[in-house]
């Protein structure tokens, strides 16, 4: 039965084979981020008794990593800041200031447990973290607390991992 359509069959097979072969890529490039970010949310009270509200008035807040390769992150007016954690250690420190013109600074210390996770053959591994504690100096920051312990590459739930409360008098 197939014999009658033998040539058609071969053309069909050859076309399928060529298309299939063309689709097979030698090695796909890494297109996903290989670092996770910890999201810091700034909160503000104007007085001790007032309701807490999210602070969006930090016009140009800055975070600087206390690391072997120090880097400074500057932000436009925002209340959410993305910082990274060190996979080589169980803690890291970031220096925070509310504005470039501000001389007062605070150091935020984050303690955590890193965990290695296979991402893909193209991207290798990524580190996820489980936050254990957070502390800070108290020049600008009144207090800091962990809101979401797990720091992963899941951004669909918009996690705000750490909240920092700006001093009421500031």
């Amino acid at each position, binding site marked *: 039965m*197939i014999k009658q359509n033998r040539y058609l*069959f071969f053309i069909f097979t050859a076309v399928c084979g060529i298309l299939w072969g063309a689709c097979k890529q030698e*090695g796909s490039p890494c297109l996903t981020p290989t670092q996770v970010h910890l999201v810091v949310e700034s909160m503000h009270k104007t007085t001790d008794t007032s309701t807490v509200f999210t602070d969006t008035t930090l016009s140009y807040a800055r975070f600087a990593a206390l*690391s072997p*390769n120090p*880097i400074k992150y500057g932000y436009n007016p925002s209340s959410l800041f993305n910082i990274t954690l060190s996979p080589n250690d169980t803690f890291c420190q970031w220096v925070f200031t509310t504005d470039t013109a501000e001389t007062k600074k605070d150091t935020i210390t984050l303690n955590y447990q890193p965990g*290695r996770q*296979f991402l893909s053959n193209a991207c290798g591994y990524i580190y996820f973290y489980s936050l254990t504690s957070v502390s800070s100096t108290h020049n600008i920051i009144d207090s800091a607390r962990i809101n979401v312990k797990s720091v992963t590459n899941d951004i669909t739930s918009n996690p705000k991992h750490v909240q920092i409360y700006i001093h009421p008098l500031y």
Partner: protein
Amino acid sequence: MCRYIYTLFISALFLFCSAPVFAQQTDTIAEEDTAAAKPKKKDMAGHQLTLGVDIYRPILNQLQKDRYGYELSVSYYTRNEYYLTMEIGRGGSTVDSAYLKYETTNEFYRLGFNKSILARDNPKDWDMMFIGLGLGVADIHRGSATFVVIDTIWGNNTGVIPANSFPAYWAEIAGGVRVELVKGLFAGWTARGKFLLNRNSFSELSPLYIAGYGKGDKNTVFDINAYISYAIRWDRKKKTVIDTSKQALAPTPAIDSTKVIVPATNGTKSMREARDAKSK
């Protein structure tokens, strides 16, 4: 683009397969109606053992420098258009990127059966279009892997994952075509959908490529093989037919009408009767 091509391919495959299937369905309904009247059709086809080699893999090996594989196929015709199939092969892969470096090799075995859905023109017609099911197992050996997590702020994190060996299991559905080009020499292809059953056992570092399966970090893989195969055939043993007509004509032993056989109702009574007869 690839997804579009796959869709096109699968659609064409089903379209190609559907005509004989529907034709067979109507045949089946018709046959069911007359099943009581007609005896079951006898399978007149002989034995067939087919040895094949995948000719598509060596071509892909040239196109894809980071992986390779080779595959042999054996199939045996049982009865009623069922074929037992076994495929064996080996292959490997090399990952060499800025993030990860390692090598794997593996052997694999697949066992399953195919059912031809194409009606034969005659008992010597071995062309077939088939669907099939199978199970596959691969024995994977991975060398030690070195990885780098690039971090421009805190410094790169590097490490070594020790070498490991582990199995992979998968189930597969298949469909394809075989055409006899000249007597005993076949060409054809098989498209397969494969479903990995134990991905969690190597989630620490999924192999780039598992020969016989495909990408190790995918739970579902579609693949195609193109085979050239050679068939060895022999006839089925003819069943010895016992001639019962002679037995039917043989004279039955004559019954002595003078002897009256009285059936015993139970054992004790018949013994008593025998004793009485002896005393008389």
